[in-house]
């Protein structure tokens, strides 16, 4: 048995193995979130939004699930009702921001290079390229990826996760971290349901509820204009809620960082 390389440490005895600590070394209890620095920046971003009464929504999904198409339809329907702006996250191209700008809404493109997610620092940088005094709802279209974006708070108030019916109806079970983080789940491209025999919306909802998620599931087709009214109503009610919070001096974070970790941290 070797006491230096850790080869004899098991989950059962690990807590004994490293105590007591010898002279010259000191053990420090930290109990801090690994992404605390990102979270601080996210809180700063959120304060930017709150002082201006902006509702910020983070859109997440697999690549090709229709985030940009949903934004385009939303802009066409709501741009006279609300002042909208978009931050686009993409690995390489400017294409998505160009599609948004073509509809008369300010958009800033973050090209992440190799990073598979946006973080709070990238979003903060982007905020300095947008005139926030002219915005009611800011959409952040995250990099298409059902894993990494869920771990990084950007300062948004709400997360919306899209699940296209061209993907599997068991995606919520396969990507629980992402779907748990959603404050609303959009079931997109439902106009294709008649030609797909292997996607059952009821099963998708069942997988979502098994994650203890009580959030709204909004089936829609941005291309065919089906189910859009419920999405717009959700946006209107979220903006009203955000304005009520702002006038009460309060803010809100997405469901993404729930009570478990916080309680755990306070105990320590």
């Amino acid at each position, binding site marked *: 048995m070797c006491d230096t390389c850790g080869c004899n440490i098991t989950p059962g005895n690990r807590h004994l193995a490293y105590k007591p600590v010898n002279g010259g070394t000191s053990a420090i209890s930290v109990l801090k979130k690994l992404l605390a620095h990102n979270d601080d920046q996210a809180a700063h971003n959120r304060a930017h939004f709150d002082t201006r009464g902006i509702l910020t929504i983070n859109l997440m999904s697999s690549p090709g699930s229709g985030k940009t198409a949903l934004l385009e339809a939303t802009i066409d329907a709501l741009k006279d009702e609300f002042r909208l702006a978009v931050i686009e996250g993409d690995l390489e191209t400017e294409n998505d921001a160009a599609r948004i700008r073509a509809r008369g809404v300010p958009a800033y493109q973050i090209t992440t290079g190799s990073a598979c997610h946006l973080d709070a620092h990238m979003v903060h940088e982007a905020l300095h390229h947008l005139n926030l005094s002219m915005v009611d709802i800011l959409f952040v279209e995250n990099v298409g990826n059902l894993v990494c974006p869920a771990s990084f708070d950007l300062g948004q108030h709400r997360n919306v996760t899209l699940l296209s019916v061209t993907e599997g109806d068991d995606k919520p079970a396969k990507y629980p971290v992402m779907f748990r983080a959603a404050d609303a789940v959009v079931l997109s491209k439902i106009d294709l349901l008649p030609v797909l025999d292997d996607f059952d919306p009821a099963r998708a909802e069942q997988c979502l*509820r098994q994650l203890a998620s009580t959030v709204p599931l909004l089936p829609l087709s941005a291309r065919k204009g089906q189910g859009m009214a419920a999405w717009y109503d959700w946006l209107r009610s979220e903006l009203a809620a955000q304005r009520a919070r702002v006038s009460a001096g309060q803010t809100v974070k997405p469901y993404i960082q729930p009570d478990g970790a916080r309680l755990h941290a306070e105990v320590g």
Partner: protein
Amino acid sequence: MHELSVCQALVNQVVEIAQQNSAHTVQLITLYIGPLAGVEPALLVSAFPLAAAGTVAASAQLVIEPQPLRVHCQTCGADTEATPNRLLCGICGDYHTQLISGDELMLANLELIT
């Protein structure tokens, strides 16, 4: 994968704490990671040497303590074990549950050599 970003955040925190404690070497880093943290412990371990290279944590041993996944039922009040894609109450089966533990992504302890 985002595990490298997470490792860089970890190393930044560790280096900061080492400096505050005037330590020249970090010997051991213990993390608490729950099944719903959104990171793969194995990927974190393999990304760590890359993120730690050239810092006081370069030779540190990274120990990951998995955390149990437990939920509290808002309907019947029971606290039970759960799995990442089935966070239902283990007693009554209801989905109105709250996570008590299992999404931790925390730096728990450090052993420093001063």
